[in-house]
């Protein structure tokens, strides 16, 4: 089997005419785990959304190719079928659609007409995955994400990854909202899947914290500040960021950013909104 390669070159993207990504260069190969870290509102989630094709984000420059095929020319569903997967920070809740119906539609969309998965292989694989993730037995019959706790939603994203077997998986803050047990389960499952698939899957892990990296050893750690990857290192970089924060790095690179105090004041003056993410914060929305 082949080793996939995702090549991102000078990727620039904006949301509501505000430029967020200012030239991302990154190559991810099958078997590799890349962690992307960085302060809130610097473009981590935007990178994920721009790659997947979220209609709210406009790519203004650059390329992103998966095995030589330009992802940016494809519709969202075609990107998925090409092998890209995004575990979302805020998965949608969809009433009336059971997990198993949804997953079967998704798996079959990937396999294509005439090559649909049989009911028994599907159920077997689904049950195995549910067990691996230590999820509730009735999960297949529950409506998609409806009434799920934060942790259940995140595990359900990983379940979809197990079922769809992507070439490149982007996991956007998969650790937020997870308690310590769920963190271990999610972390070990990701690591196992990368190992089992033997260079057929690469992972981009977007995270704030080192704690998820206790269970997933990244090969590369990238720091994304102000729309650019400013530093790349190995797992030790993540550990240093965890203990010392980003200030030393900004100082080392001579970056002009808001001081922590200023950030705190802007945060106070902003009205609370549900589901606010880094980009919205950055825009002061």
């Amino acid at each position: 089997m082949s080793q996939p390669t995702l090549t991102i070159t000078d990727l620039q993207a904006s949301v509501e005419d505000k430029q967020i990504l200012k030239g991302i260069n990154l190559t991810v190969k099958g078997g590799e785990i890349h962690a992307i870290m960085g302060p809130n509102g610097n473009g981590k989630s935007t990178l994920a959304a721009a790659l997947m094709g979220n209609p709210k984000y406009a790519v203004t420059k650059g390329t992103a190719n998966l095995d030589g095929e330009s992802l940016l020319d494809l519709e969202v569903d075609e990107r998925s079928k090409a092998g890209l997967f995004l575990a979302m920070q805020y998965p949608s809740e969809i009433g009336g659609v059971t997990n198993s119906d949804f997953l079967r539609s998704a798996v079959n969309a990937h396999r294509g007409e005439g090559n649909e998965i049989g009911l028994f292989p599907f159920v077997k694989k689904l049950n195995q995955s549910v067990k691996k993730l230590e999820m509730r037995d009735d999960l297949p019959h529950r409506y998609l994400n409806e009434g799920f706790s934060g942790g259940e939603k995140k595990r359900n994203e990983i379940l979809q990854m197990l079922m769809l077997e992507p070439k490149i998986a982007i996991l956007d803050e998969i650790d937020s909202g997870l308690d310590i047990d769920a963190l271990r389960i999610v972390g070990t499952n990701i690591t196992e899947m990368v190992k089992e698939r033997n260079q057929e899957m690469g992972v981009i892990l977007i995270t704030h914290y080192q704690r998820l990296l206790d269970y997933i050893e990244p090969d590369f750690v990238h720091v994304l500040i102000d729309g650019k990857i400013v530093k790349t290192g190995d797992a030790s970089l993540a550990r240093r960021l965890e203990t010392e924060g980003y200030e030393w790095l900004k100082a080392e690179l001579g970056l002009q950013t808001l001081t922590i105090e200023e950030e705190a004041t802007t945060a106070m003056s902003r009205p609370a909104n549900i589901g606010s993410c880094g980009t919205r914060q950055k825009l002061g929305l």
Partner: protein
Amino acid sequence: MLPKHLQAYLGEDASLALVLSEDCVQFNNTPLTVNTLGDTTHENQAYFQRVMQATVQPLATYRSADDILVVELDAKRVVDQPIHIIHLHKEALFRRHVLVIAQPLSEMKIIEHHLNAEDNQPMLIEQTLELIVRDQAKLDYVSFDAFTQAAQVQMSRFGLVERYGELTWVLGSLSSGDTQTENITQLIGEGATSQSTLLTVGVGLQKQHHLVRIDQHAAYTKGNIINHGVVRDQAQGVFDGIGYIKNGAVKADAQQESRFMVLDDLARATTNPILLIDEHDVTAGHAASVGRVDAETLYYLQSRGLTIEQAQSLVTLGFLMPLIETVSDVTLREKLLTIIETKVVQHGA
């Protein structure tokens, strides 16, 4: 015995059926008594007179007593198997008036089917249906119609529930021609309850108006209305949901939820949630919405490989699914699902 094609249509398990065509009535093992109103018992006739005076809104404007078919289940009879009432429509103008009585302490489930002989024949379907649920009786009534756009449909349904009786309506309005329905339930006895569920899918140039009303005359009555509709193409839909708690109906509870999902730019939908309350000591609530499929939701499903059309269909079916699941008969549920899938998924009806 039922004709083979009807047995096949209803499924092997269906054993109780009443087949009504223009000129004849056929029974199959039904535990029901069937009469015209003129021929029914004096007791029943006297009762109807009383009922008509007791309710503010008469049950329906009676035509000649011989045109009304009375279908009756004896007191204390409990029938577990669903009873199928099949209307065979052959003629262009079709009027029918059926009155169903569940006598005290009886229980039954009725599934009503409308079948037409020729698919694209222009037709006018006019049906009046009355359901009377007497003291502590239970009646589950499921009715659906799926005529082509050539048929105009007018359904008037009335329910009357006495002390601690329970009337459940599940109405699937799945025809593709202009459709008007009114579904009015009077809860006249203490503790009477009614649950009304209506689902519809509007396609093409179809216009639809559905009125669902529950009047609560007595104490401890409970009325719950749920309407879910989908409109696509250039279809138009209106839901009027009316919960009316009359003076003296203490501790009554009136709830309603009316929602429309709009799939295309030129489709239109309106919901009018109305609560009329003439008593202090009651509980009531309503929810209403008209909206498109959420863009985030579509993006989420697309990111899993579904095309935008597949995603849209999945969400739309999901919107109606909880209502379809209230139908307990498996054969019927599958049938409804197939009809709904076709209507939701097909393009340019």
